[in-house]
């Protein structure tokens, strides 16, 4: 092949790629059935959505664009009308979100729990303490390193709630470091630095094999981690895909999905990662 022919073929190849990509992009857009689901990272990182989304798409014909960010950012997207439906775990912020009219139809989906993890040597001696608030006080008093997500996620908002209950302001303290990263990366940092952090059980279980972190506090009622689905209010944002958002929310509370949630993760981790709660009241949980 001469250099000229080679070059010709190369550019023709590039043009073919261009055409193929544009066609692929157009064909999906032509459906006009896109839903933007803004959710927390734990639902994606645990693999739950990889099971549920294909089920939903097959059943309804909608195409779901899952944007996995922290709960705080997910709600910020909702506040701008840039998402159709949210799956989040930050109850206090969610209530405010709905009260301010950005969201409607907030429904309980499932729960699991948060845990406090740290190095097995446990320098702050928190193992065995029932109250998480007391554990946090001891970590602060001992000056052992604590890693915070600091990303306005559901986990971060829970952590701030616990610090508030201790009456300690960790901000700016030498033993308190902020990663600004997702749960998985924060767990890795915590493991490397032999620090403590608050984590959701699902992400911890999924990453456990690569971490040198033990569960040092669990089971306290304050550590409940509750997931809700919220539809973004179409009255406020006319561009929101109302039917799609509602279909997804209805799907999440359906018996079919709740049954999947009940057994999800049992095979891989020996215990379920989430407990289905559709139709229950928030106050009943953890009792």
């Amino acid at each position: 092949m001469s250099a000229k022919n080679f070059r010709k073929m190369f550019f023709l190849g590039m043009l073919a790629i261009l055409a193929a990509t544009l066609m692929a992009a157009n064909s999906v857009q032509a459906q006009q059935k896109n839903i933007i689901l803004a959710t927390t990272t734990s639902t994606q990182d645990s693999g739950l959505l990889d099971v549920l989304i294909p089920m939903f798409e097959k059943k309804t014909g909608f195409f779901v664009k899952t944007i996995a960010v922290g709960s705080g950012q997910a709600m910020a997207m909702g506040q701008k009308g840039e998402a159709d439906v949210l799956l989040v775990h930050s109850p206090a912020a969610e209530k405010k979100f709905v009260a301010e009219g950005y969201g409607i139809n907030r429904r309980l989906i499932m729960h699991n729990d948060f845990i406090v993890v740290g190095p097995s040597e446990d320098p702050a001696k928190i193992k065995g303490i029932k109250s998480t608030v007391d554990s946090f006080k001891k970590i602060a008093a001992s000056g052992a390193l604590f890693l915070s997500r600091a990303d306005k996620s559901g986990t971060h908002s829970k952590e701030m709630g616990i610090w508030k209950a201790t009456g300690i302001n960790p901000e700016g303290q030498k033993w308190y470091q902020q990663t600004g990263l997702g749960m998985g990366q924060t767990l890795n940092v915590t493991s490397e630095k032999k620090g403590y952090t608050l984590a959701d059980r699902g992400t911890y279980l999924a990453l456990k094999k690569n971490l040198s972190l033990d569960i040092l506090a669990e089971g306290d009622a304050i550590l409940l981690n509750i997931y809700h689905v919220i539809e973004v209010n179409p009255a406020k944002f006319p561009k929101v895909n109302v039917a799609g958002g509602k279909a997804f929310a209805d799907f999440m509370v359906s018996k079919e999905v709740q049954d999947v949630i009940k057994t999800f993760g049992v095979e891989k981790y020996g215990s379920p990662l989430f407990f289905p709660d559709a139709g229950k009241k928030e106050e009943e949980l953890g009792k």
Partner: protein
Amino acid sequence: MGLILEGIYKAFYLLFTLDPEVMGVTLLSLQISGTATLISLMMGISVGTAVALTEFPGRKFVVSLINTGMGLPPVVVGLFVTIFLWRNGPLGFLEILYTPAAMILAQAVIATPIVMGITLAAIQSLPRNLRLQILALGATRIQMVRILVKEAKLPLLAGVMAGFGGVISEVGASIMVGGNIKGYSRVLTTATVMETSRGNFDIAIALGIILLILAYFINLVLTHIQQRERPR
């Protein structure tokens, strides 16, 4: 160390079994970054050549802007492209946020100044007398430009490699404007980030190795073309 070997093993396993998901992700990376590079070539070479061959007031300022653009941080590009493409943003009517088209757009914005800057330097580095000589031989201005671009082929191909290398390895903008949606806008780099945060380090390493192999072969082809035309 064991983890890295496991990752290498996994990479070849995924490659040789033609794992459909990994193949899809790889192909999409290639399509998106290839298209973005192509767009950046059209914009970059034309504007770069024009700026190199013309004199106008404020030219130095424009050149400094182009050179700064060569180092545009992808996350900053991602942020601005996202804000523009939001439903309620200035380009919201296009409805392309979280699609491969949005990723092509962001990557083209990243690659264009790189190609433009290298083109500019390449054309300027040609001997000044060459231009006069070509014109003296009776060539039209368009013919002259074509000959100059041809003369600068070696550095221009370096520009293609730099532009493509920049976007195929870029993750910040891709994850922001593409959303890392499975089977739709998930490319090698965004999948690597996700698998890392999922703790699947072996798959993350495998994806990284596939990315390196891909980049190597693309550059091999380009180098082949470049070195073939080497002046002897």
